[in-house]
């Protein structure tokens, strides 16, 4: 390892060759302000386009100032991080950025969480010396993400997530000069692009240029309408992260408090998406077992691997990029949609209410779920199975607005019947969880024996692409797992090229699975946050008496009373779906 | 087209092709070269100046004489056509009258190459054609 020695603010530091000035300064606890810079080190993403020029420093002997995030340390360098020249430049540059930014902070969705606002405070910007034309663009309202690009400061973080990490490639710089902005090609709407609504762009945007569609208002309206029965479902990953918004340590499970808060907010029934997750396993696990056994019995028509289909971002992704493989994902709907379909039929009938008088709200760690519930397949007579999906972040805001003291809430239990769940459902929230849950059930249904050990450690972990095999009574079942769409693409391309021979693959669009979803409290790429959330989820699983979906008594009852058996005609109608070639759809739209 | 296979091939090819633009290159640096102007007005052409010019261009090249042959309008010696003006570097221009191919041959061999004076020089007041132009 080659070392270089340099001086930063008259203090000597020795760093590995190739280290940037920014990192070297950090070693000395010298904080250089940054704006466009983003370091998601556990995802192997260091975004340093050197575009904002806030982090510039003075390097002795150099004609102009150097961006510390991108300039490598050299032997004998002398760096000044806060000289008058630097301070003047930094502030002037920030004033310039602000001069082309709307001044609607009072009503901005990001107010209080805005990196640009924070920087203005930090650098002491108190007036606006530059006033002139502002660049304006057409706002873009998609079902899940709002682009208010007047607020784009060209940090390009979203591009890195969309292109490098997710390989979706929707967002990139367009136009030039003062008009330059990040947008889909030809300045189309997201709705007319290949956007999967994974929301990773929203998660990293420093300003309110990219935000999730906020449905809180609609939820409040439904709650205030006495004619409506409002049912809420909460996804497994929400309970492992919601506490962070109230200052709790990452990994604090707040299931009971969350239920209690939702009741206080006025929801008529507080249910659990986990119930639907168990249902998903019944359907998907059965389908998986069926396809694998047919395959093992030599049926050439059956296609493998079977791919999980509970992640809406992932579904969008393969609908755009792998339209030739639409027959391999499981046809099972996602838990959110299974929940909606059962709530507005089985449960509505039980309650003797018309589905039109029922409003189903979901609390999701996700941005794509907002889009998923608007898909035409998931509605009956234009009445959607799930009416509104709000994110973990939105729920936290809602709770705060209602002045609920979250910390002191008592722990409460979900309502019956759709609040009952097993440990298998909880682990849906983390990468590898869905396939582990499916394996638990498939194993027992296939072998007729009880699992010797419920935990499949081989399926757990944080590697972007993982594989494991499970012994099904002498038959080896090969399982692949990917999280992050870039990793999914690699895995899928291998499958396509015949380089991978998995029987089943689980894919989640977001890093870490739903716990790192686009609607979760911001984790800033810190995988220790993600790992803590995953740990919490596995703990909840461990604490459950029932840990296999097929043991959920209310699921058993649902089949007995209503659906018949997994894969029945009724189950197919309510719980399964089909996929579209979205590239073809897009051509029609244009 | 066959490919050029070596530097030697390339050089040979160049020498074959050089004549294509030799005239342009020479005229770009007229200094140090013999300048011959052939009067090619109607009177000159009628008395055979075209043949003289062709002969000069052809022969000067063959005999490796570094000269530029240009045509010019009537020099005013219509009685003595064809006429040519020869400027050897460092000398005053000389006008020859009644030039036919034989005379042209003499001019090349004797006057241009060896500096011998020949018959048939038309005395002029050292007024070059350039000034007339």
């Amino acid at each position: 390892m080659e070392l270089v020695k340099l001086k930063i603010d008259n203090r000597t530091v020795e760093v590995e060759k190739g280290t940037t000035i920014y990192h070297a300064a950090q070693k000395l606890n010298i904080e250089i302000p940054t704006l466009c810079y983003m370091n998601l080190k556990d995802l192997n993403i260091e975004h340093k386009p050197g575009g904002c020029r806030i982090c510039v420093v003075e390097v002795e002997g150099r004609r102009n100032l150097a961006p510390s995030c991108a300039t490598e340390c050299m032997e004998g360098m002398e760096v000044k991080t806060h000289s008058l020249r630097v301070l003047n430049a930094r502030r002037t540059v920030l004033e310039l950025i602000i001069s082309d930014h709307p001044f609607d902070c009072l009503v901005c969705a990001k107010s209080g969480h805005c990196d640009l606002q924070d920087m203005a405070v930090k650098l002491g910007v108190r007036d606006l010396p530059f006033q002139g034309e502002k660049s304006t663009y057409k706002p873009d309202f998609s079902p899940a993400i709002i682009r208010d690009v007047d607020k784009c400061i060209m940090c390009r973080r979203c591009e890195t997530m969309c292109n490098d990490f997710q390989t979706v490639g929707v967002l990139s710089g367009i136009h030039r000069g003062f008009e330059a902005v990040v947008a889909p090609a030809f300045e189309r709407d997201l709705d007319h692009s290949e956007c999967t609504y994974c929301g990773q762009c929203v998660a990293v945007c420093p300003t309110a240029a990219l935000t999730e569609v906020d449905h809180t208002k609609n939820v409040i309206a439904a709650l205030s309408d006495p004619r409506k029965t409002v049912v809420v479902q909460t996804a497994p990953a929400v309970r492992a992260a919601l506490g962070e918004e109230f200052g709790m340590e990452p990994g604090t499970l707040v299931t009971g408090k969350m239920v209690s808060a939702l009741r206080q907010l006025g929801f008529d029934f507080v249910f659990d998406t986990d119930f639907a997750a168990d249902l998903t396993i019944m359907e998907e696990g059965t389908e998986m077992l069926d396809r694998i056994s047919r395959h093992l019995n030599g049926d050439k028509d059956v296609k493998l691997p079977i791919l999980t289909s509970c992640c809406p971002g992932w579904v969008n992704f393969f609908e755009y990029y792998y339209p030739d493989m639409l027959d391999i994902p499981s046809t099972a709907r996602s838990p959110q949609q299974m929940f909606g379909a059962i709530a507005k039929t089985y449960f509505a009938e039980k309650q003797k209410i018309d589905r039109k008088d029922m409003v189903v709200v979901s609390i999701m760690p996700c941005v794509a779920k907002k889009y998923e519930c608007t898909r035409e397949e998931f509605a009956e007579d234009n009445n959607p199975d799930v009416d509104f999906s709000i994110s973990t972040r939105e729920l936290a805001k809602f709770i705060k607005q209602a002045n609920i003291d979250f910390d002191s809430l008592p722990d409460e239990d979900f309502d019956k019947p759709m609040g009952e769940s097993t440990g298998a459902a909880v682990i849906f929230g983390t990468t590898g969880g869905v396939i582990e849950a499916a394996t638990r059930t498939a194993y027992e249904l296939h072998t007729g024996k009880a699992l010797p050990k419920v935990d499949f450690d081989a399926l757990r972990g944080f590697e972007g692409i993982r594989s494991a095999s499970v012994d099904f009574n002498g038959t080896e079942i090969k399982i692949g797992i990917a999280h992050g769409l870039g990793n999914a693409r690699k895995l899928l391309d291998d499958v396509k090229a015949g380089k991978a021979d998995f029987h089943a693959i689980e894919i989640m669009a977001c890093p870490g699975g739903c716990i790192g979803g686009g609607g979760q409290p911001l984790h800033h790429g810190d995988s220790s946050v993600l790992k803590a959330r995953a740990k919490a989820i596995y703990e909840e699983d461990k604490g459950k008496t029932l840990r296999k979906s097929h043991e959920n008594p209310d699921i058993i009852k649902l089949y007995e009373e209503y659906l018949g058996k997994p894969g029945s005609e009724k189950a197919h109608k309510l719980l399964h779906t089909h996929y579209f070639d979205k590239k073809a759809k897009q051509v029609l739209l244009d | 087209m066959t490919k050029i296979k070596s530097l030697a091939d390339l050089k040979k090819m160049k020498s074959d092709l050089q004549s294509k633009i030799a005239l342009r290159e020479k005229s770009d640096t007229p200094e140090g070269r013999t300048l011959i102007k052939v009067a090619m007005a109607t009177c000159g052409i009628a008395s055979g100046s075209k043949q003289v010019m062709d002969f000069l261009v052809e022969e000067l090249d063959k005999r490796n004489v570094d000269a530029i042959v240009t045509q010019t309008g009537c020099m005013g010696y219509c009685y003595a056509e064809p006429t040519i003006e020869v400027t050897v570097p460092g000398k005053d221009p000389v006008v020859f009258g009644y030039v036919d191919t034989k005379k042209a041959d003499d001019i090349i061999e004797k006057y241009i190459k060896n500096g011998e004076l020949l018959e048939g020089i038309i005395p002029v007041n050292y007024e070059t054609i350039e000034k007339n132009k």
Partner: protein
Amino acid sequence: MAKYKMHMLVCGGTGCRASASDMLYENLKKEVQDNNLEDDVQVVTTGCFGFCEKGPIVKVIPDNTFYVSVEPDDAKDIVAEHAIKGRSVKRLLYTDPAKKEQIPDSKHMGFYKKQIRIALRNCGLIDPENIEEYLAADGYEALGKVLAEMKPEEAIQEVIDSGLRGRGGGGFPTGIKWQIASKVDGAQKYVVCNADEGDPGAFMDRSILEGDPHSVLESMAINGYCIGATKGLIYIRAEYPLAIKRLKIAIKQAREFGLLGKDILGSGFDFDVEIRYGAGAFVCGEETALIHSMEGDRGEPTFKPPFPAQSGYLGMPTNVNNVESYANIPVIFNKGAKWFASIGTEKSKGTKVFALAGKINNVGLIEVPMGITLREVIYEIGGGIKDGKKFKAVQTGGPSGGCLTEKHLDTPIDFDNLIAAGSMMGSGGMIVMDEDDCMVSVAKFYLDFTVEESCGKCSPCRVGNKRLYEQLELITQGKAKKEDLDKLRNLSNVIRDTSLCGLGQTSPNPVLSTMDNFHEEYLAHVTDKQCPSGVCKDLIRYEVIAENCVGCTACARNCPVNCISGERKQVHEIDQALCIKCGACLEKCKFNAIAVI
């Protein structure tokens, strides 16, 4: 083979073509044929002669007769008079603007007298679409010599010894650049010719590619041999269709002759060239942006290091040189580094091509030895200021450069002197301004260009230049205060100090150099609300000088907004509230009765 006694060289550059030089060529050919002169007279299309002010140009060889502003119909006269009767067509000869006399041939034209043509050596001499003419003009001999007789490091040393510096603007020593690239290992190295010429008014690269495309191909192959690259790419803007066409022909011919492709000249060295098209973004002249654009990405610069030599096209070691730099290379090998280094100044060797434009008599493309003075360029080659006006400034280096004034007229032009004088060489744009030009407006003009051409990646360039432009606009509108000049200067300095690439780092130069050299003029705008040159519309008004006005009504009849009133033979009056300051009245008045105040 016919031994032509006369060559008629017709300029086939883009400029002359725009004035129908291709038709002129056809007509000349036809006239030659009709007069049975095919064996005596050769009509050739060549590259640009540089004297674009008076195109289309026809040069007749061997007497160097130089015809200007030739129209297709003039072909008849040229053949009948010049080719048959040996008399030049007087009306087509160039008239010296100062002496008002006709110049018989190019050798007597001031425009050419001080020029030394190295990069442009074949422009206006050979037919660019005919490889045989290039071969006749020592073409590919340098490549042959390098491949057969020199090791790569020897060849690189020759380029280093020549002292050639990059002609694209940066002035980095070309040989050193090659040396660095030669020392980096890579599975596939690349040689890239930067033909993304974008300075306003500069067209030397286009002219070289149109007039002598083979010289660039030959140099790229030499470059490839020196650094160990087998692939060459030419990044050229799609707005240069003629250059592209001729490059394509040249590449095809060179392949046919075995001068590109496998085992060139039996040396075992493989090299081939492909063309990549740019969409005409100025910033793509910056080498990292150029490489991104070639890769199909957005044309944006990235931070250096890594330099292209370390990680360039497709992440491979890449050497990027500009067209004009390349055009010098064969001559360096043919005539020797020593010969090349004998031209120019101590630190700037050889020649530089400039595109002369603006208020100057001889607008065009010139190639002069480094060290020539601005005075020689403007007054001797350029023929002085148009209409006998007074010289005010010359802008060099394009939008990144600065303005030089009277006091710089005798400064020898080279890379370092220009920077010392507050400007730069750039790619060689030279725009001459006279007393009628307002320097604030000039700075605004260049800023307008940078605002358009900034890629928008870094904030100081994206937003800063826009604000700079807006500040200048306020000054020209008389809405700025004296304190705003300090703000303007600070903003300029910060943009220069913090921008990512050369574009932003130099974009404030026109502002800073005009502020330094014409401070009074800025002050007049902000304190007196006056534009001394009478350019800024918001600061001037047109008035009738009563004692001169004879009441002819010419002004009133020509005023597009009818704001001039007055009876015939009575003094007229301009309604300032309605006047749009178009200047029509001033132009039409024959009695000096309209004044700009």
